[in-house]
């Protein structure tokens, strides 16, 4: 009895530390301590669980804990910040995998002992397996695409949505049939396979730029899977942590879709990049871009009062964040002001640009959200666009036929002048021409972002 009280107390302490930890994550200066608190809470929960009287054999547990630590430690210390999107996707895979395996073990044990789960438990187990397997399948594909082991272009074929719909229907039928009769083992086990397949099919048609939404959505699935595990084995801490994880994923996916002015269904079933050939958008014919040399761009930047930098995925690809910081410091030393405008969906995951810039030692009070900075473009002398495209495309405001119409954008076109660092004139991810590049006030500085930036730094030093 005292043992049970101790276990429950450790779970309560863990829950409180998780919530307080997340609460402290609202303040960048307190966030770190908050997460250390959460880690201590995790330790409490684990120690509490080890006292559980149903645990009789500690050999596999110790082996698993040791092996997990050996694998997890380098996954924490060695992975570079630039690989963070795929690392996050992979950690979703792992947590969903653990939840799924616990569910299968629970079902197998009950069937083996001749005490099949009742309907309530079976419902929880069913959802756990379904959500867990969809997350595992989906996140593996997402991680593969982000790591570019798989083509990051959307993979589409005719009748794709119809086929996926059929697969999902099959999952629902299996789910209902196993809940109505938990003895149907074939239904349970085939649901595992088909849910995995569905997860894979769901993410294959989704392109790189839509990844933030998908990763966030899968995050909420994996949280719900943990929750369902909690219901299935009657464990409250799993329910609490799972719902924290689930709501975080839910909030992020809503924010991300809003920032793209698209609904979930559109992201999941729209296969954005593939259909734009049909989407009209204005073509570039007859328009000319103004190309600029490093020297001229350097002079503009050197004498600017306010420079707003707009980083995009191109900056991450070129690994140019450190060069950006150097450039910004140089401009500031000359008396100019530099601010960074971060669009919510810039990059491949929520907050991607912020982490990269923080890694490059850009102080976080210089990083501004879209809403904070958009009114300041009017007074900016230069908007410096580094490897961003769709998030500054004015067509989102004006061109109703454009696929990105309605998406909130950064007002780069309102700055007195715009310098765009870009590798070539290829269209952005969405495959749409960007009017901003043809604007009178815009100059294009072609070349690799990192090389261009280091050129700018050298030139500004000479000005």
């Amino acid at each position, binding site marked *: 009895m005292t043992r049970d009280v101790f276990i429950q107390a450790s779970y309560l302490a*863990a829950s409180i530390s998780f*919530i307080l930890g997340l609460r402290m994550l*609202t303040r*960048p200066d307190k*966030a*770190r301590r908050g997460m250390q608190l*959460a880690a201590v809470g995790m330790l409490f929960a*684990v120690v509490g*669980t080890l006292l559980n009287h149903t*645990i009789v*054999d500690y050999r*596999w547990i110790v082996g*698993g804990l040791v092996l*997990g*630590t050996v*694998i*997890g430690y380098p996954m*924490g210390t060695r*992975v570079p910040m630039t690989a*963070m999107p795929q690392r*996050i996707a992979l*950690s979703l895979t*792992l*947590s969903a*995998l653990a*939840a799924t*395996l*616990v569910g*299968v*073990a*629970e079902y*197998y*044990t009950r069937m*083996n002992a001749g005490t099949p789960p009742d309907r309530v438990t079976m419902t929880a187990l069913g959802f756990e397996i379904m959500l867990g397997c969809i997350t595992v399948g989906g996140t593996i594909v997402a991680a593969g695409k982000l790591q570019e082991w798989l083509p990051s272009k959307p993979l589409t074929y005719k009748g794709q949505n119809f086929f996926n719909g059929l697969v999902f229907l099959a999952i629902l039928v299996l789910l209902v049939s196993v809940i109505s009769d938990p003895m149907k083992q074939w239904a349970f086990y085939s649901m595992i396979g088909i849910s995995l397949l569905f997860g894979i099919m769901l993410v294959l048609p989704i392109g790189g730029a839509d990844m933030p939404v998908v990763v966030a959505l899968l995050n909420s699935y*994996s949280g719900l899977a*943990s929750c369902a595990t*909690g*219901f299935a*084995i009657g*464990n*409250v*801490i799993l329910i609490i*942590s*799972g*719902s*924290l*994880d*689930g*709501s*975080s*994923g*839910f*909030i992020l996916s809503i924010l991300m879709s809003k920032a793209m002015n698209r609904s979930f269904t559109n992201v999941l079933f729209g296969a954005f990049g593939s259909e734009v050939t049909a989407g009209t958008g204005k073509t570039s014919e007859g328009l000319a871009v103004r190309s600029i040399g490093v020297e001229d761009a350097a002079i503009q930047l050197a004498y600017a009062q306010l420079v707003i930098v707009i980083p995009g995925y191109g900056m991450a690809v070129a690994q140019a964040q450190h060069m950006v910081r150097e450039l910004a410091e140089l401009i500031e030393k000359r008396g100019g002001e530099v601010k960074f405008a971060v669009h*919510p969906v810039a990059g491949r995951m*929520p907050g991607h640009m*912020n*982490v990269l810039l923080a890694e490059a030692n850009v*102080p*976080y*009070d210089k990083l501004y959200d879209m809403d904070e900075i958009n009114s300041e473009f009017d007074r900016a002398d230069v908007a410096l666009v580094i490897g961003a495209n769709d998030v500054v495309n004015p067509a989102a405001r004006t061109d109703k036929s454009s696929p990105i119409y309605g998406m909130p954008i950064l007002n780069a076109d309102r700055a007195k002048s715009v310098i765009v660092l870009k590798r070539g004139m290829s269209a952005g991810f969405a495959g749409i021409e960007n009017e901003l590049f043809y604007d009178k006030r815009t100059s294009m500085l072609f070349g690799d972002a990192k090389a261009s930036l280091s050129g700018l730094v050298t030139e500004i030093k000479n000005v």
Partner: protein
Amino acid sequence: MSSELLELYVFVLAAFTGYMVISRVPPLLHTPLMAATNAIAGISLVGSLIAAGAAANRVATILGFVAVVAATSNIVGGFIIVDRMLKMFKRDVPSAKKEEVTAK
């Protein structure tokens, strides 16, 4: 009240709390937030430990063992990454810096 209903209460209240707390996290910290909630989701270790240690049958033990490995690596790696990330977020101290320069 049945235990399932009680669990449902816990779920609804926790989800509500989560929503209230997490919607206040600034976009600046959205990546650390994802990493943090993933590390916390490693809590499925709790279920995995029970499956691995209950010695119910060989299949459950092995599945539990794999789950323990997956969840542990997620927790260890996850919390290390969050800490690494949050360590990078620094505030600018322009006034302090300028004073230093003038002092020289």
